[in-house]
């Protein structure tokens, strides 16, 4: 029997060797397993790092902080968002349960001190040797907490977005999206977030409508068409047009829309008056005169057809332009596009609120489009500055003269045209309203884009409210006024 026992032992020894080989195999596979969703190793590494705080532009209002907690002998840092739904979409969330979004995701390296700047690398090594908790870098945003709060307040109960830029620098002063959500609920009560209801369906509270919401820009796009008309030198603000109340395209009549101010038929008007009163028929003719290529070229100059640059994750930003289904559409032939309707912002044209704010900001900044940014500076754990964002010119959209002429027209809009309800006492406001038909139950996407003060612009704004029965002048303009007032005080 000893022979059998000896052989049996050899069999067991072989089996146990196989066990160690299996362990070696998994060790070899470790790098590819580490990145897999659900592997706690990476998550725990992140969560035992004291993430940097996120502040609003005043450097005091804390948008994201940590709550320490002992978990089996280690200090864990779980994220808390004291301002709850205020800047939820820009800041995003970082949780164990559902990964990350917003700046919490795109700036994760800085927030966890995992970035490769020399001083951070040294700090990380020091913390490691001394057994200290690794500390991340803080972010100070460009968001003005007070104006952001006002924006969220005026959007209450509605679906839409407000974006405010500083035209001379591209600083994002306000980026509000409604309905919003409380990021503190994401970890444990995600159902409540998803179950939220709103004036639109689906409510999509997690969607950052400012950068991901695509809306027909309607008459606000007339700014781009007018910019093309003036900047090409083909027209001046005094160029005369005839408005019969409709325009003829491919033998069909396209009628003026009810959101224009004044009579149904204007007859002889200048280009300036056409902007002031938002006369579709004139822009329809103007579009046909300029052609698709020219109109779209100017749209591109303002940033259409590319994802607007911003520090938020690339997946949370979409490009504006003509859409075919859910894809951007590049027309090859003039006849691919109904250019008359494109000229007043219909056709298949869709734009994000951020994109339209960039249009207003470029006009306000003498035709220079600035790169938008939301992270003002990054601070080291000792509060000294690691890096600060320098304003950067994105491209020239139009010549300074064109910008000045457009500004004058836009001032008339708020003075005596469709945007009168955006007037601010003592301040010259330039603007343009928009009311885009969505084809859904007489519901409109309403807009106001503009800037103030017109003579020395400090803020450029885009307000979008979807699913409205009213017009941009009635719904969006007064909200723009309220938010700009806070910033201009």
């Amino acid at each position, binding site marked *: *029997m*000893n*022979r*059998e*026992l*000896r052989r*049996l*032992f050899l069999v*067991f*020894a072989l*089996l*146990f060797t*196989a*066990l*160690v080989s*299996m*362990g*070696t195999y*998994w*060790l070899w*596979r*470790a790098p590819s*397993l*580490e990145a*897999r969703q*659900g*592997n*706690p*190793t990476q*998550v*725990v*590494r992140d*969560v035992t790092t004291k993430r940097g705080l996120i502040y609003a532009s005043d450097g005091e209002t804390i948008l994201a902080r940590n709550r320490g*907690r*002992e*978990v*089996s*002998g*280690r200090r*864990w840092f*779980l994220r808390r968002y004291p301002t709850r739904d205020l800047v939820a979409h820009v800041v995003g969330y970082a949780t*164990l349960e559902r990964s990350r979004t917003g700046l919490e995701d795109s700036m994760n390296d800085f927030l966890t001190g995992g970035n490769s700047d020399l001083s951070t690398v040294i700090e990380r090594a020091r913390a490691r040797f001394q057994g200290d908790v690794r500390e991340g870098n803080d972010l100070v945003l460009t968001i003005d907490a007070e104006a952001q709060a006002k924006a969220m307040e005026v959007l209450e109960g509605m679906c839409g977005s407000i974006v405010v830029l500083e035209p001379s620098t591209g600083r994002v002063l306000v980026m509000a999206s409604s309905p919003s959500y409380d990021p503190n609920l994401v970890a444990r009560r995600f159902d409540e977030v998803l179950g939220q209801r709103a004036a639109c369906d689906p409510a999509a509270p997690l969607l950052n409508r400012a950068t991901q919401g695509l809306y027909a820009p309607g008459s606000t796009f007339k700014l781009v068409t007018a910019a093309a008309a003036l900047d090409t030198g083909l027209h001046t603000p005094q160029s005369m047009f005839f408005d019969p109340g409709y325009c003829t395209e491919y033998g069909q009549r396209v009628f003026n829309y009810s959101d224009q101010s004044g009579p149904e038929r204007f007859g002889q008007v200048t280009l300036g008056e056409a902007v002031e009163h938002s006369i579709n028929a004139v822009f329809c003719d103007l579009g046909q005169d300029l052609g698709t290529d020219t109109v779209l070229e100017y749209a591109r100059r303002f940033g259409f057809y590319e994802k607007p640059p911003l520090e938020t994750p690339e997946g949370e930003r979409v490009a504006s332009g003509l859409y075919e289904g859910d894809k951007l559409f590049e027309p090859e032939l003039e006849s691919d596009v109904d250019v008359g309707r494109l000229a007043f912002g219909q056709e298949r044209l869709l734009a994000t609120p951020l994109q339209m704010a960039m249009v207003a900001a470029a006009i306000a900044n003498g035709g220079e489009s600035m790169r938008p940014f939301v992270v003002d500076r990054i601070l080291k754990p000792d509060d000294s500055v690691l890096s600060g964002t320098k304003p950067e010119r994105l491209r020239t959209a139009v010549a300074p003269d064109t910008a000045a002429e457009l500004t004058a027209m836009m001032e008339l809009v708020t003075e005596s045209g469709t945007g009168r309800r955006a007037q601010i006492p003592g301040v010259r406001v330039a603007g343009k309203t928009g009311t885009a038909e969505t084809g859904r139950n007489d519901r409109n996407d309403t807009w106001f884009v503009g800037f103030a003060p017109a003579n020395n612009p400090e803020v450029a704004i885009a307000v979008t409210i979807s699913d409205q029965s009213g017009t941009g002048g009635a719904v969006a303009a007064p909200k723009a006024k309220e938010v700009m007032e806070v910033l201009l005080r």
Partner: protein
Amino acid sequence: MSLRNRELVSLLAAGLIVTLGFASVYLAQQSTISRGSISYIAVFLGLYLIAHIVTRVQLPYADPYLLPLAALLTGIGVTLIYRINPDQALRQGAWVAVGLVLFVAAIILMRDYRKLEGIKYTLGVAAVILLVLPAVPGIGRTINGATLWVDLGPFVFQPGELAKVLIVVFLASYLRDRRDVLKGAHWYSLPPIRHLGPLIVVWGAAIVVLILTNDLGGGLLYFSVFVAMLYIATGRLLYVVGGLALFAAGALAVYRVTPHVADRVAIWLDPWSDPNGAGYQLVQSIYAISSGGLFGSGLGRGALFTPDGSTYIPFLETDFIYSALVQELGLAGGAALVLLYVLFVYRGFRVAMLAQDGFSKLLIGGLTSTFAIQAFLILGGVTGLIPLTGITLPFVSYGGSSVVANLLILGLALSVSDRANRRMLGAPDRGLAPLGAPAR
């Protein structure tokens, strides 16, 4: 050095290793662990020293390494349980104490362990009753889909762990009796059906138990042990091949009856097909094992817990304790533990080979095989080498019944070893009938 002094030195070395492990868990976790808990280790080592004194007096010729290896394995187990849940470590320590009492009782009461041969059918019936006990309504308890526990109010135990020992005793004496008949004249000759009958009954019983309790691991264990012992007794590969084929046939039939088994196999083939559902345990176990690296994160420093304090891997302190070990001590620690099992199994087989009668050889060979197969089934399961079956890691997993049963096995092994070595060295037996004489 005398055998017992070797045992003492090895035991002290094991004690030192376990103390270091305990201390490093304490240092890493001192913010959450009470200082008093470090005293568990003193109690634990004291118990093994008492066991050592008993072997010194009663079994001076027994193998000197089995007790220290068992002490080290249980010590590693208690340390890991202490790291996962200090309260459970205290309870596990209590079970080790109970086990050591049984260990001592087995040594003293069963001086002539060969008397067990005389009551083999009683033991066989007792084993079957123990196995069926959890399926009895009222006292049976089902945990995680397997009906393996008996609830007796103050404590819950797994009768299967004790049944395992009884079955090996039964098989050892039965196979010793029928050895020559089963061997046959040629490699292809089959014994008369009346000799094969009881074996087929045992096989059938294992399958029935498997179905009744939904315990794939247990069924696989019993049957593998049966085949291993049949091989030790007869040396015939025909039985091994035939036995495995029979089990495969039986398992295939069960596979049709219970979806449980089919699921296990599917998960093993592709754990990532459902990483958050059916495959969750295995996937998390693999993450834990792969992230340990060569030397691990250090005891008490691994990523085992979610923020709400539960473990990422369910049943971490029982079935998946090896995953926790590899994460915190790395591949090196995992390989070291496997090596400890190889050493224990080696010493066990050595005792069996030195034993002079067939019953002793079969008994210790069978018990050691049980130990080895059980360790392999669960270690292979949590590393993804074979389909996962819920079964405890001998001496290391949290669970009283398992530790108690394994310490009982250790007592038997040392008794057999003492007797064999006395014969070899010509020392007087412990007042037993001389070998070769009928045991009854």
